C-alpha cells in the first residue's frame, strides 16, 4: 500500500478498452452488463402516441409503449425513437433489449444491433432471427447475385434496373387532400420527370430515356460515383452505414458536359427536360434515389418472382408465430442500417395482423432527417414517437463519473454482478469503486481524492470520485468538445483517450503530457509567465498544463501535484522586479468595474501555440509601429520623416511588417533592407504586447482607470518597464538603420554637392558654386552649350530640375519647428564643408553618389549617373575644342587684348568696305558678328591653359567648362576675321594694278592696313600652319 497518491491509478488502459464503447454499434451484443453499468438515463419527449397508464419516464416508457399492446392481435405497434446523431437513441433500443425477457412466451424478439453494417450481414441477421427457419434460398440467391458478377457488371445491372423502375415501376404520385402548394409543386415535378406513358404504358421522354444516353450513362457509372461506391460496399465485408445513406449528387449527372444537347438533337421533349434538370437538378437526383431504392432489391434478388423473398420470409414467420400465439418483436438500433432495402421492411410495417399473421411490435431508432423522409405509409402507422430531447450529458459530471466507476470496477466484475443481479432481481447492482476498492472497504485515498479532485453524486452509485479529473479539468475536457458535444464525443475523448493516456503518463510521472492541450479546453485568461509565477525548468511546461487545466490558472492543490508527480515549488512574480513591492501592491487587486472585456486572452492563447487572428496581428503591428515611431526622435538630429523623402526612406526601412510575427500571421514577411523585429511566442514578447496594448488604449499605467480589466498578475511598473525598454531598443535599432541609410548628414551633403556639380556643368564658375545659398537657389542657366558639351549640358539641366536641394536639405539637415514645421535653420557647417569637398573632386563625387545612394535617394543617384555619363562622354571633344581654341587665340592674339584686335580689324574692314575692297563681298555681317564676339571675350581667358594629364578628362572638362564656351567661340570668331582680312588683302593687292582717281583713298587704306599688317601676318601664318 502506498501512502501518497503519487502515480496512483484506480483504472488501467485495459479496463478502459474492455468497458468503454462510445459507439453502441461497436458494443458486442452480449455486453449488456457493460452497457447497463454506465448507462445514463435520458429524458424523452413523447409527441406522438397516447400517454400510457402509470406513466413512467425515460427508457422505461419506451419499453412500456412497445409492450403495451402485447396481446392485442389485431394491431401492430410501431415505436420510433428519434433525435440528433450521437444523442443516445440506440442506447435506448439497447436498453429495451436488455430489459426484455427473452424467455417471455408472449413474443419472439428479433434484435438487430447497430454493429451489423453490411447489407448481406443485415439480411443474414434477419433470416437467422426470424423463427420460421427458412431463408437459405434467399441468402443463396443474394450471394449468387453478388458473387457471380463482377462489380462493374453489377453496377450496370443496377443502372438498368433503375431505368426499368423509372419506365415501369415507379408510379406517379397522386395528390393528397392536405397537400400544400410546395408539396404539390414537388410532386408534379417528380411526375413530370417520369415522362408520359405511350399507348403501351411505357413512359417516354422522361428521366429513363435520359439514362439511356451514353453521356449520362457514363457519368452515373463513373468511378467514385454514387453507384460505384454502393456496389463496392456490397462486396466489402464491412461497410460504413453512411454509404447506404448517401444520395445522388449533381456530380452524378453530366450537367456541364458539352455536347449533351447535340446528342438530344431532334428530341425536343428530352431537350426541354434536360434544360430543366440543368437549371435545378435536385428533383431529378431525388427521383434517381427513388429509382435506386426500387432497383437494388431487384438487382440483389430480394424480389424474385419465384422462390423466397424477404416479404415471404416475414409472412411465414408471422404465420408461424400466430399459430404459436406469439407476437414478433423487432428491435432495430438504427433504421438507417436498412438503407436501400428499407422498402422491404416498411412493407411489413404496413401489413396488418390478422387471423393468419402475428402482430408486430417494432422499435427502431432513427435520426430526425431520415425519420422525416419515411414513406407516408409508414409515418401514418407509427404508434409512438419518442424524441431524445435531453442529452445523457445533461448532468455531464455524472455521465462521466458512471464511466469512471465502470472502468475502475472492470468488465469481468460488472458482468458477474449483472448476472447475479438478474437472478436476484437486485436494483443497484453496480458497486461504487471508491467505496469498495480495498476488499470492500473504501479506497485509502478516497477522502483526500474526493476533496481535491472532486466527486459527484451519481444515482444508484453514491459519490464517485472524478480522479484523474477534478471539476475544472472535467469542465475543460467537455468544453473542448464544443458546445454541441454528444455523449459519443465525450466518451471517445473524455473517457477513453484521456484515461488511457493518463494511465501511462501518471505511471511514468509525465502527466499532464503535451497532448493534454488538445484533450482539454486550453483557453487561458492570464499570461503564461504569470500563471507559472516565474517557475522554470523541465517541469515548468507540465506544471503549466496542470495549472491551466486543473487549477484554472491560479493554483494547484498539493494532492493533485503529488498525484501527477509535480514539484510545484515556490512561485515568484514574473520577471525581475525593478523595485521590490511595497505593502499595498502585494494585496490582491480588487476587481475594477470596466466597460469592456479584456482583449488579451487571444494573445495568451497565441502564447500557447494557437493562431492569432489576422485582425489581432494587424492591431499589434500598427500599435507597435506607432509607439516606436514616436520614440525615434530623428528630428532632434535634424532628420524629418513626417512626409516627403524622409518619410519614404523611413517607411521602406521600417513599417508594419517589420514586426515579424510567426509564419501563421498574414501579410508578406519583411523584405530585404527592412528592419525586422521578430515577435516570438515567449513570455517577454507577450509581456511587451500586453503592455503596448494597455498603454496604446489607455495612455497610463493605472489599473483602476482602465476601460478593460488590468491584466491579472502583472505589475504596472514591470509592464511599463518592459515596454519602455523594448521601445527604446527598437527605436534605437531603427534610428541606427535610418542613419546608416542616409549616411548621417551625407545624404544632404550629397544632394547639395550633386546640384553644385550640375551647376558647374552648366557653366557656373566653381567659385560661385562654393556659396551655399547660390547652390540652393541658383536657377538653371539659360545660355547655350557648345556642341561638344551638349549632352552634358542637357544632363546638368535635368539634374538641376530633378534635384531640389531645398527639399532635401529641409528634410535631412534643417531645424524645423513652428506652426507649419517648416525649415528654420540649416546645418550650414556640415553642408558648407561638404560643398568644399565636392568642389575639390566633382567627378569623384558623382561616382560616389551613383555607388552609394542608389537605394536611399534613387532620383539623385539617377541624375548623378546621367550627368556623370554625359560629362565623361562629352569631355574628350570639349577638351579637344578647348585646346584648339586656346592655341588659336594665344597664337592669333599674340598677347593682345581681343577687344583691341577687334577694334582695329573693324576699322580696316569698314574702310575696305567703303572702298569696295572688302572680301568676301557678302561677308560683312559675319565679319561684324565675329568682331562682336571677339570684343565680348572675357579679359582673363587662360590662354596659357594646358591639359593636366593627371586629372581625368571629365574632371578637366568640368574645370574648364565655365570659360570653354567663350574660348571656343572666340577662336571661331578670330578665324572669321582672319579669313576676311586675308581675302580683303588679296583684293587690295589686285587693285594696286588698276589705274584710277582713288589714289588718295588707296593710300589711306594702305596705311591702316599696315597698322594691322603685323596681326594679319601673324594670323595668316597661323592659318597656313594649321592648314
Amino acid at each position, binding site marked *: 500500500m502506498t501512502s501518497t497518491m503519487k502515480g496512483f491509478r484506480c483504472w488501467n488502459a485495459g479496463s478502459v478498452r474492455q468497458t468503454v464503447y462510445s459507439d453502441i454499434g461497436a458494443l458486442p451484443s452480449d455486453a449488456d452488463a457493460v452497457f447497463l453499468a454506465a448507462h445514463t438515463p435520458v429524458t424523452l419527449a413523447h409527441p406522438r402516441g397516447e400517454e400510457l397508464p402509470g406513466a413512467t419516464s425515460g427508457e422505461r416508457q419506451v419499453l412500456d409503449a412497445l409492450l403495451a399492446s402485447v396481446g392485442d392481435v389485431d394491431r401492430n405497434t410501431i415505436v420510433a425513437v428519434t433525435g440528433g446523431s450521437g444523442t443516445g437513441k440506440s442506447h435506448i433500443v439497447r436498453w429495451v433489449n436488455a430489459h426484455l425477457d427473452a424467455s417471455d412466451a408472449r413474443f419472439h424478439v428479433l434484435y438487430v444491433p447497430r454493429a451489423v453494417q453490411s447489407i448481406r450481414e443485415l439480411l443474414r441477421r434477419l433470416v437467422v432471427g426470424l423463427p420460421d427457419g427458412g431463408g437459405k434460398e434467399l441468402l443463396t440467391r443474394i450471394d449468387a447475385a453478388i458473387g457471380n458478377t463482377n462489380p462493374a457488371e453489377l453496377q450496370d445491372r443496377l443502372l438498368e434496373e433503375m431505368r426499368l423502375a423509372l419506365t415501369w415501376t415507379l408510379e406517379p404520385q397522386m395528390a393528397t387532400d392536405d397537400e400544400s402548394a410546395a408539396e404539390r409543386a414537388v410532386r408534379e415535378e417528380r411526375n413530370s420527370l417520369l415522362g408520359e406513358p405511350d399507348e403501351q404504358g411505357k413512359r417516354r421522354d422522361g428521366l429513363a430515356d435520359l439514362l439511356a444516353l451514353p453521356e449520362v450513362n457514363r457519368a452515373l457509372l463513373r468511378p467514385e460515383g454514387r453507384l460505384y461506391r454502393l456496389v463496392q460496399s456490397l462486396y466489402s465485408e464491412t461497410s460504413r452505414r453512411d454509404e447506404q445513406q448517401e444520395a445522388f449528387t449533381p456530380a452524378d449527372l453530366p450537367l456541364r458536359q458539352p455536347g449533351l444537347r447535340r446528342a438530344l438533337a431532334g428530341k425536343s421533349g428530352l431537350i426541354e427536360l434536360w434544360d430543366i434538370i440543368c437549371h435545378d437538378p435536385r428533383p431529378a437526383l431525388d427521383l434517381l434515389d427513388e429509382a435506386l431504392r426500387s432497383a437494388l432489391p431487384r438487382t440483389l434478388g430480394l424480389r424474385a418472382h419465384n422462390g423466397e423473398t424477404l416479404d415471404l420470409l416475414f409472412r411465414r414467420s408471422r404465420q408461424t408465430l400466430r399459430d404459436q400465439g406469439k407476437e414478433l418483436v423487432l428491435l432495430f438500433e438504427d433504421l438507417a442500417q436498412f438503407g436501400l432495402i428499407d422498402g422491404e421492411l416498411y412493407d411489413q410495417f404496413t401489413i396488418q395482423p390478422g387471423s393468419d399473421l402475428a402482430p408486430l411490435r417494432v422499435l427502431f431508432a432513427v435520426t430526425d432527417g431520415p425519420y422525416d423522409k419515411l414513406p407516408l405509409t409508414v409515418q401514418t402507422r407509427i404508434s409512438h414517437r419518442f424524441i431524445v430531447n435531453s442529452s445523457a450529458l445533461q448532468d455531464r459530471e455524472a455521465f462521466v463519473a458512471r464511466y469512471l466507476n465502470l472502468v475502475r470496477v472492470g468488465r469481468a466484475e460488472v458482468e458477474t454482478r449483472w448476472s447475479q443481479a438478474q437472478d436476484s432481481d437486485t436494483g443497484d447492482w453496480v458497486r461504487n469503486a471508491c467505496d469498495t476498492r480495498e476488499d470492500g472497504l473504501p479506497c485509502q485515498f478516497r477522502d483526500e481524492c474526493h476533496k481535491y479532485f472532486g466527486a459527484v453524486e451519481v444515482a444508484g452509485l453514491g459519490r464517485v470520485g472524478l480522479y484523474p479529473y477534478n471539476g475544472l479539468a472535467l469542465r475543460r475536457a467537455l468544453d473542448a468538445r464544443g458546445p454541441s458535444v454528444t455523449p459519443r464525443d465525450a466518451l471517445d475523448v473524455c473517457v477513453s483517450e484521456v484515461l488511457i493516456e493518463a494511465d501511462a503518463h501518471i505511471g511514468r510521472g509525465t502527466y499532464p503530457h503535451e497532448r493534454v492541450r488538445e484533450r482539454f479546453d486550453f483557453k487561458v485568461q492570464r499570461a503564461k509567465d504569470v500563471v507559472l509565477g516565474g517557475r522554470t525548468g523541465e517541469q515548468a511546461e507540465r506544471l503549466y498544463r496542470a495549472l491551466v487545466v486543473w487549477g484554472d490558472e491560479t493554483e494547484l492543490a498539493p494532492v493533485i501535484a503529488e498525484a501527477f508527480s509535480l514539484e510545484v515549488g515556490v512561485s515568484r512574480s514574473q520577471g525581475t522586479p525593478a523595485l521590490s513591492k*511595497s505593502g499595498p501592491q502585494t494585496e490582491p487587486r480588487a476587481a475594477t468595474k470596466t466597460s469592456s472585456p479584456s482583449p488579451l486572452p487571444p494573445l495568451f492563447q497565441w502564447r500557447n501555440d494557437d493562431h492569432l487572428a489576422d485582425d489581432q496581428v494587424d492591431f499589434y503591428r500598427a500599435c507597435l509601429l506607432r509607439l516606436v515611431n514616436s520614440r525615434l526622435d530623428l528630428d*532632434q538630429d535634424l532628420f524629418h520623416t513626417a512626409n516627403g523623402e524622409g518619410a519614404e526612406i523611413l517607411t521602406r526601412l521600417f513599417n508594419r511588417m517589420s514586426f515579424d510575427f510567426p509564419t501563421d500571421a498574414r501579410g508578406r514577411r519583411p523584405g530585404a533592407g527592412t528592419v525586422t523585429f521578430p515577435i516570438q511566442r515567449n513570455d517577454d514578447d507577450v509581456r511587451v504586447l500586453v503592455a503596448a496594448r494597455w498603454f496604446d488604449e489607455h495612455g497610463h499605467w493605472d489599473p483602476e482607470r482602465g476601460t478593460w480589466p488590468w491584466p491579472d498578475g502583472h505589475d504596472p511598473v514591470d509592464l*511599463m518597464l518592459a515596454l519602455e525598454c523594448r521601445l527604446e531598443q527598437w527605436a534605437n535599432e531603427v534610428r541606427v538603420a535610418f542613419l546608416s541609410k542616409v549616411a*548621417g548628414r551625407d545624404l544632404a551633403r550629397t544632394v547639395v554637392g550633386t546640384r553644385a556639380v550640375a551647376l558647374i556643368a552648366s557653366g557656373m564658375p566653381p567659385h560661385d558654386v562654393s556659396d551655399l545659398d547660390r547652390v*540652393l537657389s541658383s536657377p538653371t542657366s539659360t545660355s547655350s552649350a557648345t556642341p561638344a558639351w551638349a549632352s552634358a549640358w542637357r544632363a546638368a539641366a535635368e539634374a538641376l530640375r530633378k534635384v531640389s536641394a531645398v527639399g532635401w536639405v529641409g528634410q535631412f539637415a534643417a531645424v524645423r519647428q*513652428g506652426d507649419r514645421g517648416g525649415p*528654420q*535653420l540649416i546645418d550650414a557647417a556640415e553642408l*558648407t*564643408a561638404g560643398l568644399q569637398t565636392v568642389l575639390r573632386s566633382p567627378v569623384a563625387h558623382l561616382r560616389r553618389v551613383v555607388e552609394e545612394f542608389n537605394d536611399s535617394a534613387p532620383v539623385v543617384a539617377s541624375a548623378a549617373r546621367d550627368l556623370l555619363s554625359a560629362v565623361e562622354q562629352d569631355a574628350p571633344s570639349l577638351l579637344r575644342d578647348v585646346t584648339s581654341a586656346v592655341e588659336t587665340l594665344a597664337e592669333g592674339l599674340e598677347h593682345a587684348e581681343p577687344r583691341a584686335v577687334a577694334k582695329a580689324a573693324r576699322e580696316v574692314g569698314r574702310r575696305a568696305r567703303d572702298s569696295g575692297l572688302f572680301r568676301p563681298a557678302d561677308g560683312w555681317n559675319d565679319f561684324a558678328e565675329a568682331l562682336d564676339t571677339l570684343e565680348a571675350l572675357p579679359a582673363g581667358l587662360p590662354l596659357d591653359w594646358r591639359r593636366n594629364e593627371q586629372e581625368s578628362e571629365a574632371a578637366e572638362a568640368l574645370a574648364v567648362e565655365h570659360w570653354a564656351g567663350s574660348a571656343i567661340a572666340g577662336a571661331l570668331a578670330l578665324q572669321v576675321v582672319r579669313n576676311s582680312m586675308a581675302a580683303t588683302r588679296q583684293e587690295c593687292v589686285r587693285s594696286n594694278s588698276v589705274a584710277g582717281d582713288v589714289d588718295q583713298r588707296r593710300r589711306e587704306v594702305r596705311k591702316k592696313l599696315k597698322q594691322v599688317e603685323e596681326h594679319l601676318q601673324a594670323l595668316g601664318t597661323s592659318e597656313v600652319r594649321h592648314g
Partner: protein
Amino acid sequence: MDYLKQQNLASVPALFVICRYLATRPDGEDEAALRRVLQPRAMIANQGPAPRDDERRDVLPASLEVGRDIELLDAQGSRRERVWSLRESVRAEVAAVPAADSRPFRNLVLRSLGARAMQVIESGERPADVALALTWLLQGDPLSPLSTSWSDGPEMAVRRSGLDLAVSSPEQWRALVRWARSLGLATATAARQKSYLVVDPTKAVDDTLGRLPRQGPAETWFRQLHSLLPVLGHRALISALPGPRGSATEIPAATALAVCKLERAGRLRLLQSDDASSTVVLRLGHQVRQVGEVHVVEAVA
C-alpha cells in the same frame, strides 16, 4: 531670463546648428551673416509666407539669446551689430559632436541650463522659467503621463501647481515639451487616441554617466547626478518651485524610472548596502527599493 515666455521659439536643435557653425568661425559672425548662412534665402523663399510674421525672424535671435544666457555663446558689440561666437570653454566639446548625433550637445545644453539655473538661485534670483518648468515636470509620475495637448490636462496641472509664472499658454507648453524632449527628459509617445508626454530622463542620465563616479554610495552618486543635472531634482531647484512640494530627500519617480531602465540595459548596477546613511529610496508606482551603491557598468567616453 525667461525662455518660455520671452524666447519662446528658442530650441535645442537651433542652438545645435548655431554652435556647430560658430565652432568653425573662431572670430565669430554677426547676426546678419549668421542669418545669411543658416537661413539661406532659398530655404525661406521656398516656404511661402510664414503663418506668423515673427516666427522665422525669432528662431535665430531667440536661440542666440538663450545660448548666451546659458553661457554657450558670447556676444560682442552693440546690439545691432553684435558678433556672436562660441565660448572657448565649450568649443572643443561642440566641435567633437558628430553632425548626425546631437545627444552629446543636448547633454551639454542640459548641464549648462542647470548650471545657469543654480547660479541664478545662488544669486538670489528666480531661475529661468524653463528650468523651473522642467524641474516641475520631472517631479511627475511616469505612470500617469500628461497629454501633450495643453488643454487636455496640462493646463489644469500647471495651474494647480502654481506654475503659471513659467507656463501659461499652449505655445509655452509646446515649447516646454520641445525642451523636455530635446534634453532627453521626456518622450512624446503616440498612443491610439492621443500623444502623451512620458517623463523619462533615461537619455539625459545615460549621457551623463561618463561624468559621474564609476561607483560609489548611492546618496553621493545621486547628489552628483543632481549637481550635474539639477532639473532632475536638485533640492535648490525644487525649493524654487511654487506651491507644495514632494520630499526633497526622495529620488523622484522619473529618475527612479531612468536608473531602473539603465539597470535593465546593463548600464548601471544598483546594489543594496548595509550602510543606511548612504542609502537612497527609489519609488516607482507601488514598488520601492533601497539602493546603497551605484555602479556604472560602462562609462561613457
